[in-house]
Protein backbone atom coordinates (compact mmCIF):
# COMPACT_ATOMS: atom_id res chain seq x y z
CA UNK A 1 0.00 0.00 0.00
CA UNK A 2 1.47 3.29 -1.08
CA UNK A 3 1.19 5.85 1.69
CA UNK A 4 2.06 8.75 -0.63
CA UNK A 5 -1.16 8.04 -2.53
CA UNK A 6 -3.19 7.26 0.54
CA UNK A 7 -2.30 10.40 2.48
CA UNK A 8 -3.89 13.00 0.17
CA UNK A 9 -6.96 10.82 -0.14
CA UNK A 10 -7.37 10.68 3.60
CA UNK A 11 -6.75 14.40 3.91
CA UNK A 12 -9.47 15.08 1.36
CA UNK A 13 -11.94 12.75 3.04
CA UNK A 14 -11.40 13.97 6.58
CA UNK A 15 -10.84 17.73 6.57
CA UNK A 16 -8.45 19.01 9.17
CA UNK A 17 -6.88 15.71 10.11
CA UNK A 18 -3.22 15.69 10.97
CA UNK A 19 -1.23 13.13 9.01
CA UNK A 20 2.45 12.56 8.68
CA UNK A 21 4.37 9.78 6.96
CA UNK A 22 7.02 8.24 9.18
CA UNK A 23 9.55 6.62 6.94
CA UNK A 24 11.19 3.38 7.90
CA UNK A 25 14.80 3.06 6.72
CA UNK A 26 14.99 -0.71 7.24
CA UNK A 27 14.82 -3.12 4.27
CA UNK A 28 11.28 -4.07 5.24
CA UNK A 29 10.13 -0.70 3.86
CA UNK A 30 7.06 -0.69 6.08
CA UNK A 31 6.42 3.04 6.39
CA UNK A 32 3.77 4.23 8.76
CA UNK A 33 1.26 7.02 9.12
CA UNK A 34 1.27 9.19 12.22
CA UNK A 35 -2.27 10.37 12.86
CA UNK A 36 -3.69 12.99 15.18
CA UNK A 37 -5.77 11.39 17.94
CA UNK A 38 -8.71 13.80 17.48
CA UNK A 39 -9.60 12.40 14.04
CA UNK A 40 -8.53 8.82 14.65
CA UNK A 41 -12.03 7.34 14.80
CA UNK A 42 -13.17 9.05 11.58
CA UNK A 43 -10.02 7.98 9.86
CA UNK A 44 -10.31 4.38 11.04
CA UNK A 45 -13.93 4.22 9.92
CA UNK A 46 -12.94 5.60 6.52
CA UNK A 47 -10.12 3.07 6.15
CA UNK A 48 -12.42 0.22 7.07
CA UNK A 49 -15.48 1.16 5.02
CA UNK A 50 -14.17 2.68 1.79
CA UNK A 51 -14.70 0.03 -0.91
CA UNK A 52 -11.24 0.16 -2.46
CA UNK A 53 -9.41 0.26 0.89
CA UNK A 54 -11.47 -2.09 3.10
CA UNK A 55 -9.01 -2.49 5.95
CA UNK A 56 -11.38 -4.81 7.75
CA UNK A 57 -8.72 -6.59 9.76
CA UNK A 58 -6.62 -4.98 12.46
CA UNK A 59 -3.92 -7.52 12.96
CA UNK A 60 -1.57 -6.16 15.55
CA UNK A 61 -1.94 -3.39 18.11
CA UNK A 62 0.96 -2.54 20.30
CA UNK A 63 2.54 0.17 22.37
CA UNK A 64 6.00 1.65 22.23
CA UNK A 65 7.56 3.74 24.96
CA UNK A 66 9.72 6.66 23.82
CA UNK A 67 11.19 8.37 26.87
CA UNK A 68 13.09 11.61 26.24
CA UNK A 69 16.40 9.79 26.52
CA UNK A 70 15.55 7.45 23.65
CA UNK A 71 14.30 10.18 21.35
CA UNK A 72 17.40 11.74 19.74
CA UNK A 73 18.32 8.39 18.22
CA UNK A 74 14.80 7.87 17.01
CA UNK A 75 14.66 11.32 15.43
CA UNK A 76 17.80 10.52 13.53
CA UNK A 77 16.63 7.14 12.42
CA UNK A 78 12.97 7.72 11.79
CA UNK A 79 12.56 11.29 10.63
CA UNK A 80 15.33 11.43 8.07
CA UNK A 81 13.22 12.18 5.03
CA UNK A 82 10.74 14.45 6.73
CA UNK A 83 10.47 18.18 6.29
CA UNK A 84 11.44 20.89 8.70
CA UNK A 85 8.02 21.15 10.34
CA UNK A 86 8.19 17.65 11.73
CA UNK A 87 11.63 18.10 13.17
CA UNK A 88 10.34 21.14 15.05
CA UNK A 89 7.49 19.09 16.50
CA UNK A 90 9.90 16.51 17.74
CA UNK A 91 12.20 18.99 19.38
CA UNK A 92 9.15 20.32 21.21
CA UNK A 93 8.27 16.86 22.40
CA UNK A 94 11.79 15.98 23.41
CA UNK A 95 11.83 16.98 27.07
CA UNK A 96 8.93 14.70 28.03
CA UNK A 97 8.96 11.87 25.53
CA UNK A 98 5.73 10.11 24.60
CA UNK A 99 3.95 6.78 24.42
CA UNK A 100 2.96 5.45 21.04
CA UNK A 101 0.23 3.06 19.94
CA UNK A 102 0.87 1.22 16.68
CA UNK A 103 -1.88 -0.46 14.61
CA UNK A 104 -1.15 -2.87 11.76
CA UNK A 105 -4.08 -2.99 9.35
CA UNK A 106 -4.70 -5.50 6.61
CA UNK A 107 -7.60 -6.21 4.32
CA UNK A 108 -8.97 -9.73 4.37
CA UNK A 109 -11.37 -8.97 1.57
CA UNK A 110 -8.93 -7.35 -0.86
CA UNK A 111 -5.88 -9.12 0.59
CA UNK A 112 -3.60 -6.10 0.78
CA UNK A 113 -1.74 -4.31 3.51
CA UNK A 114 -0.23 -3.46 5.82
CA UNK A 115 -1.09 0.12 6.56
CA UNK A 116 0.53 1.06 9.82
CA UNK A 117 -1.08 3.76 11.95
CA UNK A 118 0.64 5.39 14.88
CA UNK A 119 -0.80 7.63 17.55
CA UNK A 120 1.22 9.48 20.14
CA UNK A 121 0.30 10.70 23.59
CA UNK A 122 1.32 14.19 24.64
CA UNK A 123 3.65 13.01 27.35
CA UNK A 124 4.36 9.96 29.50
CA UNK A 125 2.99 11.13 32.82
CA UNK A 126 -0.56 12.44 32.87
CA UNK A 127 -1.68 13.29 29.35
CA UNK A 128 -1.66 9.69 28.21
CA UNK A 129 -5.13 9.51 26.67
CA UNK A 130 -5.74 8.18 23.17
CA UNK A 131 -9.03 7.29 21.50
CA UNK A 132 -9.78 3.58 21.48
CA UNK A 133 -10.23 1.95 18.08
CA UNK A 134 -12.02 -1.07 19.58
CA UNK A 135 -15.42 0.25 18.37
CA UNK A 136 -14.04 -0.05 14.81
CA UNK A 137 -12.02 -3.27 15.16
CA UNK A 138 -12.92 -5.69 17.94
CA UNK A 139 -9.49 -7.28 17.61
CA UNK A 140 -8.04 -4.23 19.36
CA UNK A 141 -10.02 -5.12 22.49
CA UNK A 142 -7.54 -7.33 24.36
CA UNK A 143 -4.54 -5.70 22.77
CA UNK A 144 -5.50 -2.20 23.91
CA UNK A 145 -6.12 -3.61 27.37
CA UNK A 146 -2.65 -5.04 27.25
CA UNK A 147 -1.17 -1.65 26.30
CA UNK A 148 -3.12 -0.03 29.12
CA UNK A 149 -1.77 -2.66 31.47
CA UNK A 150 1.86 -2.72 30.40
CA UNK A 151 2.42 0.81 29.07
CA UNK A 152 -0.22 2.91 30.80
CA UNK A 153 -1.93 4.47 27.78
CA UNK A 154 -5.57 5.20 28.65
CA UNK A 155 -7.87 4.41 25.74
CA UNK A 156 -10.98 6.61 25.86
CA UNK A 157 -14.05 4.81 24.60
CA UNK A 158 -12.78 1.31 25.28
CA UNK A 159 -15.72 -0.81 26.53
CA UNK A 160 -13.84 -2.69 29.23
CA UNK A 161 -10.50 -1.13 30.09
CA UNK A 162 -9.02 -3.27 32.86
CA UNK A 163 -5.65 -4.82 33.51
CA UNK A 164 -5.32 -8.00 31.52
CA UNK A 165 -2.01 -9.68 32.33
CA UNK A 166 -0.96 -8.12 35.62
CA UNK A 167 -3.24 -8.40 38.65
CA UNK A 168 -5.74 -5.65 39.37
CA UNK A 169 -3.96 -4.27 42.43
CA UNK A 170 -0.74 -3.73 40.53
CA UNK A 171 0.06 -0.05 40.05
CA UNK A 172 3.02 0.28 37.69
CA UNK A 173 3.48 -0.34 33.95
CA UNK A 174 6.16 -2.99 33.39
CA UNK A 175 6.86 -2.40 29.71
CA UNK A 176 7.98 1.19 30.19
CA UNK A 177 11.66 1.68 29.61
CA UNK A 178 12.25 3.17 33.06
CA UNK A 179 10.30 0.53 34.98
CA UNK A 180 12.08 -0.70 38.08
CA UNK A 181 11.13 -4.07 39.43
CA UNK A 182 9.96 -3.91 43.05
CA UNK A 183 12.15 -5.61 45.63
CA UNK A 184 9.28 -7.61 47.00
CA UNK A 185 6.20 -8.62 45.02
CA UNK A 186 4.46 -10.09 48.06
CA UNK A 187 3.14 -6.88 49.54
CA UNK A 188 -0.20 -8.46 50.33
CA UNK A 189 -0.51 -10.38 53.60
CA UNK A 190 -1.48 -13.94 52.85
CA UNK A 191 -2.92 -16.68 55.02
CA UNK A 192 0.44 -18.31 54.73
CA UNK A 193 2.05 -15.44 56.68
CA UNK A 194 -0.31 -16.04 59.56
CA UNK A 195 0.54 -19.70 59.66
CA UNK A 196 4.24 -18.90 59.61
CA UNK A 197 3.87 -16.38 62.42
CA UNK A 198 2.04 -18.92 64.58
CA UNK A 199 4.66 -21.53 63.82
CA UNK A 200 7.47 -19.20 64.82
CA UNK A 201 5.58 -18.34 67.96
CA UNK A 202 5.14 -22.03 68.74
CA UNK A 203 8.82 -22.82 68.20
CA UNK A 204 9.92 -19.93 70.36
CA UNK A 205 8.39 -21.76 73.31
CA UNK A 206 6.24 -18.85 74.44
CA UNK A 207 2.98 -20.72 74.01
Amino acid at each position, binding site marked *: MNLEQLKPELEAAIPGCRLEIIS*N*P*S*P*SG*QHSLLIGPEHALDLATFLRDTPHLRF*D*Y*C*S*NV*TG*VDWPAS*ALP*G*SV*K*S*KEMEDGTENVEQDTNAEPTGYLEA*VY*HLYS*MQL*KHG*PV*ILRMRTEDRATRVHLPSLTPI*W*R*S*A*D*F*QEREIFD*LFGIIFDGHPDLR*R*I*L*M*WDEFTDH*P*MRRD*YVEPDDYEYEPTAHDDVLRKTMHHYSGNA
Partner: protein
Amino acid sequence: MTTATLPPSATLISQSADSDTQLLEVSMGPQHPSTHGVFRMDVALDGEHVVKLKPIFGYLHRNHEKIAENETYLGSMPYTDRLDYFCSITNNWAYALAVEKLAGVVVPERAEYLRVITGELTRLQNHASLVGFLMQDMGASGTPLMYAFREREKILDLFEALTGARMMCNYMRFGGCRCDLPEGWLAQAKQVVDAFPRFLDEFERLLSGNEIIMARTQGVGVLSKELAINAGVTGPMLRACGVNYDLRKVDKYGIYDRFNFRVPLGEHGDVYDRYMIRLLEMRESVGILRQAMRDLPEGPFTDPKTKVRNFRPKPGEAYGRIEAPKGELGFYLISDGTPNPYRYRVRPPSLINLTVLEDMCLGQNIADVVIILGSVDIVMGEVDR
Protein backbone atom coordinates in the same frame (compact mmCIF):
# COMPACT_ATOMS: atom_id res chain seq x y z
CA MET B 1 -30.09 -13.36 48.76
CA THR B 2 -30.13 -15.02 45.41
CA THR B 3 -28.04 -12.45 43.58
CA ALA B 4 -26.25 -10.82 46.48
CA THR B 5 -22.95 -12.53 45.82
CA LEU B 6 -22.85 -11.57 42.17
CA PRO B 7 -20.97 -8.62 40.72
CA PRO B 8 -23.11 -5.69 39.54
CA SER B 9 -23.09 -6.71 35.89
CA ALA B 10 -24.49 -10.16 36.66
CA THR B 11 -27.15 -8.73 38.92
CA LEU B 12 -28.31 -6.43 36.17
CA ILE B 13 -28.71 -9.32 33.78
CA SER B 14 -30.89 -11.20 36.22
CA GLN B 15 -33.18 -8.22 36.68
CA SER B 16 -33.63 -7.67 32.99
CA ALA B 17 -34.32 -11.35 32.39
CA ASP B 18 -37.12 -13.35 33.94
CA SER B 19 -37.31 -12.25 37.56
CA ASP B 20 -37.91 -15.79 38.83
CA THR B 21 -34.57 -17.10 37.63
CA GLN B 22 -31.50 -17.21 39.75
CA LEU B 23 -28.06 -16.50 38.40
CA LEU B 24 -25.23 -18.69 39.49
CA GLU B 25 -21.69 -17.50 39.12
CA VAL B 26 -19.14 -20.20 38.44
CA SER B 27 -15.42 -19.65 38.31
CA MET B 28 -14.16 -22.23 35.84
CA GLY B 29 -10.47 -22.69 36.38
CA PRO B 30 -7.69 -21.82 36.81
CA GLN B 31 -7.00 -25.41 37.85
CA HIS B 32 -9.56 -27.11 35.67
CA PRO B 33 -8.52 -29.96 33.40
CA SER B 34 -10.44 -28.59 30.43
CA THR B 35 -8.92 -25.12 30.39
CA HIS B 36 -5.72 -26.18 28.60
CA GLY B 37 -3.48 -24.52 31.12
CA VAL B 38 -3.85 -21.99 33.88
CA PHE B 39 -6.86 -20.14 32.53
CA ARG B 40 -10.03 -19.00 34.22
CA MET B 41 -13.48 -18.04 33.05
CA ASP B 42 -15.94 -16.14 35.19
CA VAL B 43 -19.22 -17.59 33.99
CA ALA B 44 -22.68 -16.45 35.04
CA LEU B 45 -25.29 -19.14 34.51
CA ASP B 46 -29.04 -18.95 34.18
CA GLY B 47 -29.95 -22.56 34.73
CA GLU B 48 -27.50 -24.27 32.40
CA HIS B 49 -27.27 -21.36 29.99
CA VAL B 50 -24.35 -18.99 29.90
CA VAL B 51 -25.36 -15.33 30.23
CA LYS B 52 -21.93 -13.87 30.87
CA LEU B 53 -18.41 -15.14 30.37
CA LYS B 54 -15.22 -13.23 31.07
CA PRO B 55 -11.91 -14.89 30.34
CA ILE B 56 -9.25 -14.13 32.95
CA PHE B 57 -5.61 -14.94 32.34
CA GLY B 58 -2.11 -13.75 33.09
CA TYR B 59 -1.19 -16.52 35.50
CA LEU B 60 1.72 -17.51 33.26
CA HIS B 61 2.76 -13.94 32.48
CA ARG B 62 6.52 -13.49 32.65
CA ASN B 63 6.77 -10.45 30.36
CA HIS B 64 8.43 -12.25 27.51
CA GLU B 65 8.62 -8.97 25.58
CA LYS B 66 10.59 -7.22 28.31
CA ILE B 67 12.96 -10.16 28.64
CA ALA B 68 13.57 -10.03 24.90
CA GLU B 69 14.34 -6.31 25.01
CA ASN B 70 17.20 -7.08 27.39
CA GLU B 71 18.42 -9.96 25.28
CA THR B 72 20.30 -10.07 22.00
CA TYR B 73 18.37 -10.88 18.82
CA LEU B 74 19.67 -14.41 18.75
CA GLY B 75 19.24 -14.78 22.51
CA SER B 76 15.47 -14.49 22.15
CA MET B 77 15.27 -17.38 19.71
CA PRO B 78 15.12 -20.14 22.35
CA TYR B 79 12.61 -18.07 24.32
CA THR B 80 10.22 -18.08 21.37
CA ASP B 81 10.02 -21.88 21.76
CA ARG B 82 8.22 -21.29 25.04
CA LEU B 83 5.44 -19.16 23.57
CA ASP B 84 3.34 -21.83 21.96
CA TYR B 85 5.23 -24.82 23.30
CA PHE B 86 3.40 -27.20 20.98
CA CYS B 87 4.75 -25.49 17.88
CA SER B 88 8.22 -24.25 18.71
CA ILE B 89 9.40 -24.44 15.12
CA THR B 90 6.73 -22.15 13.72
CA ASN B 91 7.45 -19.69 16.55
CA ASN B 92 11.11 -19.72 15.54
CA TRP B 93 10.11 -19.22 11.95
CA ALA B 94 7.93 -16.20 12.62
CA TYR B 95 10.66 -14.55 14.67
CA ALA B 96 13.34 -15.36 12.10
CA LEU B 97 11.10 -13.98 9.36
CA ALA B 98 10.60 -10.70 11.20
CA VAL B 99 14.32 -10.29 11.85
CA GLU B 100 15.10 -11.15 8.23
CA LYS B 101 12.70 -8.43 7.11
CA LEU B 102 14.29 -6.01 9.55
CA ALA B 103 17.85 -6.72 8.48
CA GLY B 104 17.25 -7.68 4.84
CA VAL B 105 18.66 -11.19 5.14
CA VAL B 106 18.26 -13.59 2.23
CA VAL B 107 17.47 -17.21 3.02
CA PRO B 108 19.05 -19.92 0.84
CA GLU B 109 16.76 -22.26 -1.00
CA ARG B 110 17.52 -25.43 0.92
CA ALA B 111 16.86 -23.62 4.19
CA GLU B 112 13.47 -22.50 2.90
CA TYR B 113 12.61 -26.10 2.09
CA LEU B 114 13.80 -27.27 5.50
CA ARG B 115 11.60 -24.60 7.07
CA VAL B 116 8.57 -25.72 5.12
CA ILE B 117 9.19 -29.38 5.99
CA THR B 118 9.63 -28.78 9.71
CA GLY B 119 6.86 -26.18 9.79
CA GLU B 120 4.32 -28.45 8.17
CA LEU B 121 5.32 -31.34 10.43
CA THR B 122 4.64 -28.98 13.32
CA ARG B 123 1.22 -28.23 11.90
CA LEU B 124 0.47 -31.95 11.61
CA GLN B 125 1.31 -32.70 15.22
CA ASN B 126 -0.43 -29.59 16.54
CA HIS B 127 -3.69 -30.28 14.71
CA ALA B 128 -3.60 -33.98 15.56
CA SER B 129 -3.18 -33.37 19.26
CA LEU B 130 -5.72 -30.53 19.22
CA VAL B 131 -8.35 -32.86 17.81
CA GLY B 132 -7.38 -35.38 20.48
CA PHE B 133 -7.74 -32.78 23.21
CA LEU B 134 -11.08 -31.67 21.81
CA MET B 135 -12.38 -35.22 22.00
CA GLN B 136 -11.02 -35.52 25.53
CA ASP B 137 -12.90 -32.34 26.46
CA MET B 138 -16.03 -33.87 25.02
CA GLY B 139 -15.70 -36.92 27.21
CA ALA B 140 -14.21 -39.34 24.68
CA SER B 141 -11.77 -40.22 27.37
CA GLY B 142 -8.35 -41.31 26.29
CA THR B 143 -8.69 -43.23 23.06
CA PRO B 144 -8.69 -40.47 20.40
CA LEU B 145 -6.10 -38.49 22.33
CA MET B 146 -3.79 -41.48 22.58
CA TYR B 147 -4.22 -42.21 18.88
CA ALA B 148 -3.23 -38.62 18.16
CA PHE B 149 -0.32 -38.71 20.59
CA ARG B 150 0.95 -41.90 19.01
CA GLU B 151 1.32 -40.04 15.70
CA ARG B 152 2.63 -36.94 17.41
CA GLU B 153 5.40 -38.93 19.06
CA LYS B 154 6.62 -40.10 15.66
CA ILE B 155 6.94 -36.48 14.55
CA LEU B 156 8.55 -35.45 17.82
CA ASP B 157 11.09 -38.25 17.33
CA LEU B 158 11.95 -36.66 14.01
CA PHE B 159 12.37 -33.29 15.72
CA GLU B 160 14.58 -34.86 18.34
CA ALA B 161 16.78 -36.45 15.74
CA LEU B 162 17.06 -33.14 13.90
CA THR B 163 17.37 -30.59 16.71
CA GLY B 164 18.10 -32.53 19.86
CA ALA B 165 14.84 -31.59 21.55
CA ARG B 166 11.34 -32.91 21.21
CA MET B 167 9.48 -29.71 21.89
CA MET B 168 11.92 -26.85 22.53
CA CYS B 169 13.52 -27.18 19.12
CA ASN B 170 15.23 -23.80 18.71
CA TYR B 171 15.80 -24.74 15.08
CA MET B 172 15.73 -21.55 13.01
CA ARG B 173 18.46 -18.98 12.65
CA PHE B 174 18.41 -15.63 10.86
CA GLY B 175 19.09 -16.57 7.26
CA GLY B 176 18.41 -20.26 7.55
CA CYS B 177 18.33 -23.12 10.00
CA ARG B 178 20.63 -24.26 12.78
CA CYS B 179 21.73 -27.54 11.27
CA ASP B 180 21.29 -29.70 8.21
CA LEU B 181 19.35 -32.94 8.14
CA PRO B 182 21.15 -35.87 9.75
CA GLU B 183 21.76 -38.97 7.66
CA GLY B 184 18.68 -41.07 7.12
CA TRP B 185 16.35 -38.39 8.47
CA LEU B 186 14.62 -37.72 5.19
CA ALA B 187 13.85 -41.39 4.60
CA GLN B 188 12.38 -41.69 8.08
CA ALA B 189 10.37 -38.50 7.63
CA LYS B 190 9.02 -39.79 4.33
CA GLN B 191 7.90 -42.93 6.09
CA VAL B 192 6.09 -40.93 8.78
CA VAL B 193 4.43 -38.67 6.22
CA ASP B 194 3.40 -41.58 4.00
CA ALA B 195 1.83 -43.35 6.95
CA PHE B 196 -0.01 -40.23 8.10
CA PRO B 197 -3.03 -40.39 5.74
CA ARG B 198 -3.78 -43.87 7.08
CA PHE B 199 -3.94 -42.44 10.58
CA LEU B 200 -6.23 -39.68 9.31
CA ASP B 201 -8.52 -42.23 7.69
CA GLU B 202 -8.63 -44.20 10.90
CA PHE B 203 -9.27 -41.05 12.90
CA GLU B 204 -12.07 -39.96 10.61
CA ARG B 205 -13.68 -43.39 10.61
CA LEU B 206 -13.60 -43.28 14.36
CA LEU B 207 -14.83 -39.72 14.87
CA SER B 208 -16.32 -37.80 11.94
CA GLY B 209 -19.51 -39.80 11.59
CA ASN B 210 -19.94 -40.40 15.29
CA GLU B 211 -23.45 -39.49 16.32
CA ILE B 212 -22.50 -38.19 19.74
CA ILE B 213 -19.78 -35.97 18.34
CA MET B 214 -22.13 -34.56 15.72
CA ALA B 215 -24.80 -33.90 18.33
CA ARG B 216 -22.36 -32.23 20.66
CA THR B 217 -20.58 -30.06 18.11
CA GLN B 218 -22.87 -29.18 15.22
CA GLY B 219 -24.47 -25.79 15.67
CA VAL B 220 -22.51 -25.22 18.87
CA GLY B 221 -20.34 -22.13 19.32
CA VAL B 222 -21.30 -20.57 16.01
CA LEU B 223 -19.16 -17.64 14.96
CA SER B 224 -20.30 -15.39 12.15
CA LYS B 225 -18.03 -14.40 9.29
CA GLU B 226 -18.35 -10.68 9.98
CA LEU B 227 -17.57 -10.94 13.66
CA ALA B 228 -14.65 -13.26 13.00
CA ILE B 229 -13.05 -10.76 10.61
CA ASN B 230 -13.76 -7.78 12.83
CA ALA B 231 -12.39 -9.50 15.91
CA GLY B 232 -9.19 -10.46 14.15
CA VAL B 233 -9.75 -14.19 14.47
CA THR B 234 -7.21 -16.07 12.36
CA GLY B 235 -6.15 -19.56 11.47
CA PRO B 236 -8.43 -22.60 11.30
CA MET B 237 -11.04 -20.78 13.39
CA LEU B 238 -11.41 -18.09 10.76
CA ARG B 239 -11.46 -20.52 7.87
CA ALA B 240 -14.12 -22.59 9.61
CA CYS B 241 -16.35 -19.50 9.22
CA GLY B 242 -15.76 -19.59 5.48
CA VAL B 243 -13.26 -16.74 5.13
CA ASN B 244 -10.55 -17.63 2.67
CA TYR B 245 -7.54 -16.13 4.38
CA ASP B 246 -4.45 -18.26 4.71
CA LEU B 247 -1.17 -16.37 4.93
CA ARG B 248 0.57 -19.17 3.07
CA LYS B 249 -1.56 -18.10 0.09
CA VAL B 250 -1.93 -14.38 0.85
CA ASP B 251 1.62 -13.43 1.81
CA LYS B 252 3.33 -16.38 0.12
CA TYR B 253 6.14 -16.03 2.62
CA GLY B 254 9.13 -18.27 2.13
CA ILE B 255 8.51 -20.50 -0.87
CA TYR B 256 4.84 -21.34 -0.35
CA ASP B 257 3.98 -20.17 -3.86
CA ARG B 258 5.79 -23.23 -5.23
CA PHE B 259 3.47 -25.76 -3.65
CA ASN B 260 0.16 -26.94 -4.86
CA PHE B 261 -2.36 -27.03 -2.03
CA ARG B 262 -5.90 -25.97 -1.29
CA VAL B 263 -7.30 -23.98 1.60
CA PRO B 264 -10.16 -25.88 3.24
CA LEU B 265 -13.10 -23.68 4.21
CA GLY B 266 -16.01 -24.28 6.54
CA GLU B 267 -19.59 -23.12 6.15
CA HIS B 268 -21.21 -22.91 9.54
CA GLY B 269 -18.44 -21.69 11.80
CA ASP B 270 -19.37 -24.15 14.53
CA VAL B 271 -17.20 -26.51 16.54
CA TYR B 272 -17.69 -29.36 14.08
CA ASP B 273 -16.41 -27.19 11.22
CA ARG B 274 -13.36 -26.25 13.24
CA TYR B 275 -12.68 -29.92 13.89
CA MET B 276 -13.16 -30.77 10.22
CA ILE B 277 -10.98 -27.90 8.98
CA ARG B 278 -8.10 -29.21 11.06
CA LEU B 279 -8.45 -32.69 9.64
CA LEU B 280 -8.53 -31.32 6.10
CA GLU B 281 -5.58 -29.03 6.76
CA MET B 282 -3.59 -32.03 7.90
CA ARG B 283 -4.30 -33.71 4.57
CA GLU B 284 -3.14 -30.58 2.71
CA SER B 285 -0.02 -30.44 4.88
CA VAL B 286 0.78 -34.02 3.96
CA GLY B 287 0.56 -32.95 0.32
CA ILE B 288 2.89 -29.99 0.88
CA LEU B 289 5.34 -32.21 2.76
CA ARG B 290 5.45 -34.73 -0.08
CA GLN B 291 6.15 -31.98 -2.62
CA ALA B 292 8.79 -30.34 -0.43
CA MET B 293 10.59 -33.61 0.29
CA ARG B 294 10.55 -34.48 -3.39
CA ASP B 295 12.01 -31.11 -4.46
CA LEU B 296 14.46 -30.56 -1.60
CA PRO B 297 17.58 -29.13 -3.28
CA GLU B 298 21.20 -29.41 -2.22
CA GLY B 299 23.03 -26.34 -0.99
CA PRO B 300 23.78 -24.38 2.15
CA PHE B 301 21.29 -24.64 5.00
CA THR B 302 22.04 -21.15 6.26
CA ASP B 303 23.10 -17.87 4.73
CA PRO B 304 26.91 -17.79 5.13
CA LYS B 305 27.02 -13.98 5.00
CA THR B 306 24.81 -13.44 8.03
CA LYS B 307 26.75 -13.07 11.23
CA VAL B 308 24.93 -14.78 14.05
CA ARG B 309 27.10 -13.32 16.80
CA ASN B 310 27.00 -9.59 17.39
CA PHE B 311 24.01 -9.23 15.13
CA ARG B 312 23.03 -5.56 14.83
CA PRO B 313 20.30 -4.62 12.37
CA LYS B 314 20.23 -1.02 11.18
CA PRO B 315 17.64 1.25 12.82
CA GLY B 316 14.12 0.68 11.59
CA GLU B 317 11.20 -1.56 12.21
CA ALA B 318 9.52 -4.59 10.70
CA TYR B 319 6.42 -6.69 11.17
CA GLY B 320 6.70 -10.28 10.03
CA ARG B 321 3.87 -12.77 10.19
CA ILE B 322 3.33 -16.39 9.30
CA GLU B 323 0.45 -18.82 9.31
CA ALA B 324 1.18 -20.70 12.51
CA PRO B 325 -1.02 -23.73 13.27
CA LYS B 326 -3.12 -21.59 15.62
CA GLY B 327 -3.43 -18.53 13.41
CA GLU B 328 -1.45 -15.50 12.42
CA LEU B 329 1.69 -15.34 14.51
CA GLY B 330 3.42 -11.99 14.08
CA PHE B 331 6.55 -10.40 15.45
CA TYR B 332 6.95 -6.63 15.48
CA LEU B 333 10.49 -5.43 16.00
CA ILE B 334 11.99 -1.97 16.33
CA SER B 335 15.75 -1.72 16.11
CA ASP B 336 17.80 1.24 17.30
CA GLY B 337 21.06 -0.12 15.96
CA THR B 338 22.16 -1.79 19.18
CA PRO B 339 22.49 -5.57 19.68
CA ASN B 340 19.16 -5.65 21.57
CA PRO B 341 15.80 -4.91 19.99
CA TYR B 342 14.32 -1.60 21.15
CA ARG B 343 10.84 -3.06 20.99
CA TYR B 344 9.90 -6.68 20.57
CA ARG B 345 6.26 -7.56 20.27
CA VAL B 346 4.57 -10.90 19.76
CA ARG B 347 1.15 -10.97 18.16
CA PRO B 348 -0.20 -14.15 19.73
CA PRO B 349 -2.98 -15.83 17.73
CA SER B 350 -4.43 -17.67 20.73
CA LEU B 351 -4.92 -14.46 22.72
CA ILE B 352 -6.74 -12.66 19.95
CA ASN B 353 -8.86 -15.70 19.09
CA LEU B 354 -10.09 -15.57 22.69
CA THR B 355 -11.68 -12.15 22.04
CA VAL B 356 -14.79 -13.86 20.66
CA LEU B 357 -15.02 -16.55 23.33
CA GLU B 358 -17.86 -14.79 25.14
CA ASP B 359 -19.79 -14.19 21.89
CA MET B 360 -19.55 -17.88 21.00
CA CYS B 361 -20.57 -19.10 24.46
CA LEU B 362 -23.56 -16.81 25.22
CA GLY B 363 -26.77 -18.84 25.35
CA GLN B 364 -24.94 -22.15 25.17
CA ASN B 365 -24.90 -24.80 27.86
CA ILE B 366 -22.15 -24.79 30.44
CA ALA B 367 -20.99 -28.20 29.17
CA ASP B 368 -20.51 -26.69 25.72
CA VAL B 369 -18.21 -23.95 27.02
CA VAL B 370 -15.58 -26.62 27.52
CA ILE B 371 -15.66 -27.80 23.92
CA ILE B 372 -15.96 -24.30 22.49
CA LEU B 373 -12.83 -23.36 24.37
CA GLY B 374 -11.24 -26.59 23.19
CA SER B 375 -12.01 -25.75 19.58
CA VAL B 376 -10.33 -22.32 19.88
CA ASP B 377 -7.00 -24.07 20.41
CA ILE B 378 -5.24 -21.97 23.02
CA VAL B 379 -1.87 -22.47 24.64
CA MET B 380 -1.35 -20.41 27.75
CA GLY B 381 2.36 -19.96 27.16
CA GLU B 382 1.36 -17.82 24.21
CA VAL B 383 -1.72 -16.13 25.66
CA ASP B 384 0.07 -14.91 28.77
CA ARG B 385 3.58 -14.51 27.39
